[in-house]
């Protein structure tokens, strides 16, 4: 079993750009060529942008964009607490401690025909690298972007060039039911190979359910509190079904963060 990312490294990168992407949301672009060179969709980085001991832990981020030519990556995040607030106040030129790439790359079908991408809030972030990879392999992506309100629909225009179609859903416009209907239609009309979801347990459950009925592989980005990112703190566990009966704990940093919805339990 693949339990280890052999290309992970610890480097000091440089912040190239930090721009707002919505209320309390930011996109950070950093130069870290050694990390970007080996990074793949589905992987993540642990960042630290301060030299002090408070906040203590690094913060994990999915790759939003991977620009191999420029040796740069982007992450899209919401300011949730002390650590993300500090990162949001960094400036171009500031050093950034980067640990990565971490986690298991998405196991893409060699020639995917069509995939569905479902992101809610900042959960839209990793869909960009997936859409790019699917296109590179000759497939089509259909994105369903969900948010609480229209101003929280993030980076939708930037996503369009990578996708066959992008639909948006907001809670104030009955988003939940509409998204379900759109996904059902998509599953019926397109022979989806896979559907990826990030940012909502409710949407992950929906994809898991439709995946069972339909014929696509569902995957979810799992979010678990994490200290080390490399498998030593044993903190970031998710329950996954065990052959036979019951479940076992899997570390999101090593076996994930992307898990097949046929295996992981959404709680």
């Amino acid at each position, binding site marked *: 079993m693949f339990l280890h990312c052999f290309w992970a490294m610890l480097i000091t990168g440089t912040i190239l750009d930090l721009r707002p992407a919505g209320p309390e949301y930011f996109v950070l672009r950093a130069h870290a060529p050694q990390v970007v060179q080996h990074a793949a969709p589905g992987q993540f980085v642990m960042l630290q942008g301060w030299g002090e001991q408070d906040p203590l832990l690094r913060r994990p981020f999915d790759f939003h964009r991977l620009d191999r030519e420029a040796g740069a990556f982007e992450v899209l995040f919401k300011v949730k607490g002390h650590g993300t607030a500090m990162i949001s106040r960094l400036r171009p030129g500031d050093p950034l401690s980067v640990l990565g790439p971490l986690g298991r790359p998405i196991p893409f079908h060699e020639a995917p025909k069509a995939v569905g991408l479902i992101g809610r809030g900042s959960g839209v972030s990793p869909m960009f690298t997936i859409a790019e990879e699917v296109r590179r392999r000759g497939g089509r992506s259909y994105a369903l972007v969900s948010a609480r309100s229209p101003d929280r629909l993030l980076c939708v225009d930037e996503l369009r060039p990578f996708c066959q179609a992008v639909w948006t859903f907001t809670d104030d416009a009955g988003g939940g039911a509409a998204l379900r209907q759109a996904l059902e239609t998509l599953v019926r009309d397109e022979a989806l190979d896979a559907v990826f979801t990030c940012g909502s347990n409710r949407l992950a459950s929906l994809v898991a359910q439709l995946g069972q009925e339909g014929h696509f592989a569902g995957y979810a980005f799992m979010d678990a*509190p994490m200290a080390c990112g490399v498998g030593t*703190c044993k903190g970031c566990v998710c329950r996954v079904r065990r052959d036979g009966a019951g479940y076992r704990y899997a570390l999101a940093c090593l076996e994930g963060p992307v898990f097949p919805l046929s295996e992981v339990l959404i709680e």
Partner: protein
Amino acid sequence: MNEPDLSVSLGRLRLKNPVMPASGTFNFGKEYAEYFDLNQMGAVVNKSVMLQPRQGNAPPRIVETPCGMLSSIGLPSQGIEEFLTVQLPFMRALECAAIVSVSGTSAEEFGELVSVLDRAGGVDALELNLSCPNFVDKVIFATDCGLMAEVLQECRRRTSLPLIAKLSPNVTDIVQMARLAEKHGADMLCAVNTFTGMAIDVRTRRPVLGTVTGGLSGPAIKPIVLRMVWQITQAVGLPVIACGGISNGTDAVEFLLAGAAAVQVGTANFINPLAIPETIAGIRQYMLDSGPHSVTEIIGAAWRRSAAGR
């Protein structure tokens, strides 16, 4: 300039330098082998092995707190059989001391693990994790004089390998527990495991951790552990390995000055995979800048300064 001598002796256990990982923060070393040469370490210490495979506690298992973190991992373990075939050979192959941390749910289980590891060969010392605060039934051996004595006696009976008793800080008088460990056959002490604590999410109005309480670690606990090491080393003759918030060379030197014979780097590994080699380099630099030739000469040096009234 003369290269300083960083080697230390902890009774029969000789280390090329006083720095090692804290159990439970380093797995058994494999993950960090990509970041630095593990052979630089004074010793390697595994995450405590249990007799049988165990899953560990229900999530959430960790939460950050100011300058620290609470964790309740619950000793997930691959069990001793896999440990002997996978983890121990890796540890043994390193050019540093192999300290095997064990934990059990009873004195008998501790004793059985000690017997198996005594026979396995290539183990330089055994660290008895008597102080995990996160077992499901929340029994902490090292907070109960009777239980701790029982485990130590059982382990002592079964091996002549150096035994390290890892103490719990969750006691009224740490010195009393240190004396008790000495009396019942410990060769060394490790001070200390994590402090029990908890966090509550004001939004959900529930405890954050799946097991309600967890163990506090990181820089937040360092001053308390330093005080404990200071007290223990002046009251008890056994070598003490300090553990609690040590993140760099300066922290390590503080603990050596307080009387510790060696130090463990724990939570710092999570943030900085190079925390251990940087700590070793920091001690060396301190010795070059202002120390005597041998690091053993600074162990407990702060007592003398204190006694002399500065």
